[in-house]
């Protein structure tokens, strides 16, 4: 029974799959399954960055900005400086790190709460993008080097590069957060920072580094996005924010102790991917789809967190 409650979210996903495949049999085709994976790649990367920050007891509202900066730095490097593709990738990651660094400085040095700090970063980052692009016009770069373009459209043995990149990041995060001793320390900080501090954990250093790592991770998502559409679209990262948070919390609801965790986040991301894909296949109008997915998201979160509360009530703890 406990097991059933804990994994009841998987049943919801199964129900969605059944529903969508009745509506449109194409949903189940191998090609479409790959579509779902491809469509989830960027979100997974961003959500993993978010998992790190939430596991550490914080929140990062600026993941979208880090993603935008990743894309912007890379595209500008390619377009204005004729940089090689790998230099562009490096530039993009540096862009994400800068956002993470700003957050880290605000949170660790100035003692601002993670929410406020990343909210401030969000607004400043958005404003900087508007200033730089003179109001938010995209920077397109048609003659993108093929290697860079391949980040989004290439494939290895039929598996799209972006899926491979996301998978690689997933494995790294799994090892980092769930198997390494750093991960142990991060979880300890997230649960009880003073207890971790007194146990000799370098709390401030780890928080500092984690925000930078999260920024860099999100920038990878930005690289893929810019390679895909061959341009940098300002403020496009914002759309990933809530989905990333939702994926993390859905994932946490499946953990025995309600902790954010890498595999749970993967399940959350896939759920959102299936949802977006299924709604697309239903042929809904763009605005209707947005509304519907927003509503379903709220319901899914309420369900995930509500059933978690039920499970813990059963165990007699609150």
């Amino acid at each position, binding site marked *: 029974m406990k097991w059933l409650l804990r994994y009841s979210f998987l049943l919801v996903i199964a129900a969605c799959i059944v529903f969508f495949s009745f509506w449109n049999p194409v949903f189940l085709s191998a090609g479409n399954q790959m579509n779902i994976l491809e469509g989830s790649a960027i979100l997974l990367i961003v959500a993993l960055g978010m998992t790190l920050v939430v596991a550490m007891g914080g929140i990062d509202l600026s993941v979208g900005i880090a993603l935008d900066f990743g894309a912007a730095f890379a595209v500008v490097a390619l377009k204005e400086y004729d940089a090689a593709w790998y230099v562009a990738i490096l530039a993009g990651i540096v862009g994400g790190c800068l956002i993470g660094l700003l957050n880290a400085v605000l949170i660790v040095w100035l003692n601002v709460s993670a929410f406020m700090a990343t909210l401030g970063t969000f607004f400043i980052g958005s404003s900087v993008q508007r200033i730089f692009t003179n109001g938010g016009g995209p920077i397109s770069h048609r003659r993108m080097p093929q290697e860079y373009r391949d980040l989004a459209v290439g494939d290895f043995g039929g598996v799209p590069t972006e899926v491979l990149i996301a998978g690689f990041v997933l494995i790294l995060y799994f*090892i980092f957060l769930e*198997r*390494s*001793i*750093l991960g*142990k*320390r991060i*979880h*300890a900080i997230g*649960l*009880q920072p*003073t*207890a*971790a*501090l*007194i*146990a*000799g*954990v*370098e709390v*401030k250093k780890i928080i500092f580094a984690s925000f930078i790592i999260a920024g860099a991770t999100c920038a990878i998502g930005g690289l893929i996005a810019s390679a895909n559409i061959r341009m940098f679209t300002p403020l496009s990262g914002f759309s990933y924010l809530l989905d990333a948070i939702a994926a993390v919390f859905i994932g946490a609801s499946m953990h025995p*102790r309600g902790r954010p965790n890498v595999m749970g986040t993967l399940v959350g991301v896939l759920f959102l991917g299936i949802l977006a894909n299924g709604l697309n296949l239903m042929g809904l109008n763009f605005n209707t789809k947005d509304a519907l997915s927003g509503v379903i998201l709220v319901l899914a979160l309420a369900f995930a967190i509500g059933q978690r509360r039920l499970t813990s009530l059963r165990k007699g*703890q609150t």
Partner: protein
Amino acid sequence: MTPILDMAGISVTFPGVKALDKAMLTVLPGEVHGLVGENGAGKSTLIKVLAGVYAPDEGVVSLGDEKHISTLTPNLVHTAGVRFIHQELHLVPHFTVAESVFMGQEISGRFGLDKSTMNARTEDFLRETLNADISPRTLIRDLGTAERKLVQISRALIDGRATLVVFDEPTAPLASDEVDRLFAAIGGLKSKGIAMIYVSHYLREITHISDRVTVLRNGKAVKVFNEVSDQITDPMISAMVGREIAEMFPKKENTSNKKLFEARELSGMGFSQVNFDVAAGEVLGIAGLVGSGREELIDTIYGLLPVTSGSMTLKAEAYNPKRPAKAVKAGVALVPRDRRHDGLVLDQPVIDNINLASLEEVSTVLMEKRGVAKNRAEAMANQLDLRPRNVTMIPRLLSGGNQQKVVLGRWLAKGGDLFILDEPTVGVDVGAKVEIYALIRELAAQGSAVIVSSGDPLELLGLSDRIMVLQRGFLAASHDAKDVNVDSLVALTTGGSSGAIE
């Protein structure tokens, strides 16, 4: 005289523990009744039965003329005029005194809150009943601890319907001169004919203000003193402990006298110019009231607070850790006073808590070797007799004593030269206490230096080789443990207040 409260034959059983075993407590109208006993003796359980929080398995509780059997509810008790002054203050820092007193029972006029009436009534109550002069418009965060305590008392009593007030360790957070203010307030209540139950660890206070005293041990009321004087301190202690005090503590064997840690003219937040040293193999006790600088001194040694002047040496090298991670690296370990908040990650399994300070030792290239980690934790659990012996459990579900064993286990696993234990046995039952004492002496026997900071004079006397006493941030005395006894130690810590030193 009909008692205002009569609790008879009260038994309460928790899973695996008989918390109260036919306990009794009788309070007469207008008296101050002291309730004493060691941690885990059943004091707080008895109070919670009275509060209607726990329903007793058996027994009768009579309030005034009414008899209630397991039907007490918090509301009913409140209506009967019983008020509880909890240990925690439960005040909102940015509220004014009057706002805090009337919290939940605000007075409203035609044009909204009647602030002037509330201010006036608060001021009157504080002055006339509690003998205190506090402006009702002061913010709580600008008050001292004793004044906050008085505000808390006013909140419970402002409606004027109290007949019995229960004080749970009211002086625990107070400095010595502040205690007098509280006693003045209690005197005020007494003159109004209000009966009181006074729960405290400080026997001196008990003998000072109580009319009668009940002693609890292992859930039983083992002794009632109907006459109270300074002479009953010793009989009270032996009634509480139930055995010779000496039996609780391990033998002291000081193995060496090589100086391991030294503080010279050390000043920090809350203490100044403190000189002391600890040798390898020695247990140094630190005594002092809350506010004496005892907590701050320990936090400073561990790098949680900055050194403002002076110096420290550890193993003949200059030592100034700046943050705990550096202290740990240098070989210092802290068992903090608030183990639930600062000592343990309550929701991470025991394995992780035990290995948290020494994760490098259970890993290769930063990857945790889970088997090694588990074996290590299990070995530690065996060594410490952790109950239950399940290292995948989360510490939140363990008893206080076992939680403390996990904290100790972490530092045993890590190893160190200087162990600092801050209130190591608060909230720990007698059995586990004895085990923890043995462990502390063993650490010293193996060549570590140990500092024990405690508010419990018995503990300090039984455990330490030497005891230093802090008073208002200054080192007031430093003695061999065999040269002091409970009375002289208490006199040293409380300093000039209420004529303790004559």
